[in-house]
């Protein structure tokens, strides 16, 4: 997952305010929260920032790609190890004799499963980061070797 500093490093760093934010750092934070998009920074369209523009666009998956719980899976980074599938507390609770013990999920209620070598999501409403009693669960984030899962 990118952090604001990494994003900031790729910005023009001129604090021109054209994006409506007071500083480039503030713009970086808005990018991270998906409040603004890479295209909201006009100087980035300049030829000399072409490479940075490309990098930023790859780094910041648009919010439309996120599930309702805010989860984004970077499919290019995921290699299907299943760590997140087995670590997710909802998967364990719903499928204690399948995903919970490391085997193929046997319940329709799991949030994470691996198909064609890439993690897929379902039942995202049940994610512990969602709804009224939400908590800052990070089971699927810290167990991923490649930072393929991110929440916005």
């Amino acid at each position, binding site marked *: 997952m990118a952090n604001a500093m990494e994003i900031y490093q790729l910005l023009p760093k001129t604090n021109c305010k054209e994006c409506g934010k007071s500083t480039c750092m503030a713009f970086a934070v808005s990018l991270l929260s998906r409040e603004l998009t890479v295209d909201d920074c006009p100087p980035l369209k300049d030829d000399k920032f072409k490479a940075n523009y490309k990098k930023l666009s790859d780094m910041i998956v648009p919010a439309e790609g996120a599930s309702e719980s805010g989860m984004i899976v970077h499919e290019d980074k995921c290699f299907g190890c299943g760590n997140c599938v087995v670590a997710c507390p909802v998967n364990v609770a719903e499928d204690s004799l399948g995903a919970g013990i490391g085997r193929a999920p046997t319940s329709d209620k799991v949030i994470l499963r691996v198909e064609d070598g890439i993690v897929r999501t379902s039942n995202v409403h049940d994610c512990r980061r969602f709804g009224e009693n939400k908590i800052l669960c990070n089971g699927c984030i810290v*167990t991923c070797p490649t930072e393929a899962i991110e929440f916005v």
Partner: protein
Amino acid sequence: MVILLNENYHVCTGCALLCDDIEVVIDANVITEIKTACRKGVSRMKGCNDPMSPTVEGQQVDIDVAIGAAADILKNSESPLIFGLGNSTDGAQKKAIELAKHIGAILDDTSSFCQGPTLEAIFNDKIKSCTLDDVRNKADVIVYWGADPSNSHPRHLSKFSYFPRGQERQRGWEEDRTMISIDIRKSHTAKISGDKFHQIPLQADEEFIDALIDALSGKVPKVPFEYDPKRILELANIMKNARFGIIFVGLGLVYSLDNMDPIVKLMDKLNELSNFHLIPMVGHYNMRGFNQNLFNETGHLNRVKFEKGNNTKVQHGAEFSIVESLNEKKVDAALIIGSDPLSSLPRAVADHLLNIPIITIDPCETFTSRKAKVTIPSALSGVECGGSAIRMDGEEVMFEPIIETTTLSDEEILTRIMEAL
């Protein structure tokens, strides 16, 4: 214990973890969807990008012609080499041993330059081992040493070692297990182990083992490189207090040691104080099977030479490894089965291979097959043909073919070559 297949599940032969919980969707004899396998497994099950055709001297021929040509090469050879078989079923491996006896071949596999020494120590009861199911059910301290399963065996942590709940590990990884990684670089696996990652310099494993043994013995650990002794003491403490410990030995550790003595010493010390096991991170899906099958037959797990016409005489030694026999130009023909030595061996060693006739049996084109005199395509085992294989922990896993094919299996090809001899 033989692991029998749940009828809805298939086995992945992408690595020696042999995951046995794979579901597939098949449409018109083509696998269109694969569930639960990792990306590595998916790419194996989807088949080759470059399937191999039967050829002799680069010309496409009928499969029977290719088999005949292979038999001719072996017939005319004084000292043939048979190599590979890590990606073949037990049945094919046994056939290859039979063929090697028949033609008096040198027989070796990749274990002679990777996990051979570890397996030898386990086969000879010098090191205590256990099954991966034991690890899942009981292990509370898990050490990956010189291994990065996140890349080599992607489901290792999720299926067996760190993340799953087990009979005696009901509270899972957060509370019930500690995972340690010792490596020369911060690999993907090391990242997961967080502050339990120990980064050591290249080739320093033996010194680190010695220091760890000192720490386990209550002495102040010392290493000839900069390292906080407190961290080694802390590591020793975790290992000492393990109820069921496991060390997964990767190639990084094997390559940096001259022999197994340091590991044996460490295991002995650990087992004076607690309860530790060791499993080698075998790569190819049935490399351990080859070693086991040859061991059962000859008492050696690799690097053997059979005597032509004398079924019982077998020599064993370093000089019969693929590396030495090529270096010494001891072989005059090579039968390579499911392996690509021209890309895995150092150039200087592989050079001699280019001067002798090569026969390759493989589902896919490889660097070696492109230089081969005879190529014989085989069915992709685990996908197009069934059989059994030995998982990295020694458990036998049976599997059925997933799709149909008319391509011959390794075992059938070897049988046909024997007949043609």
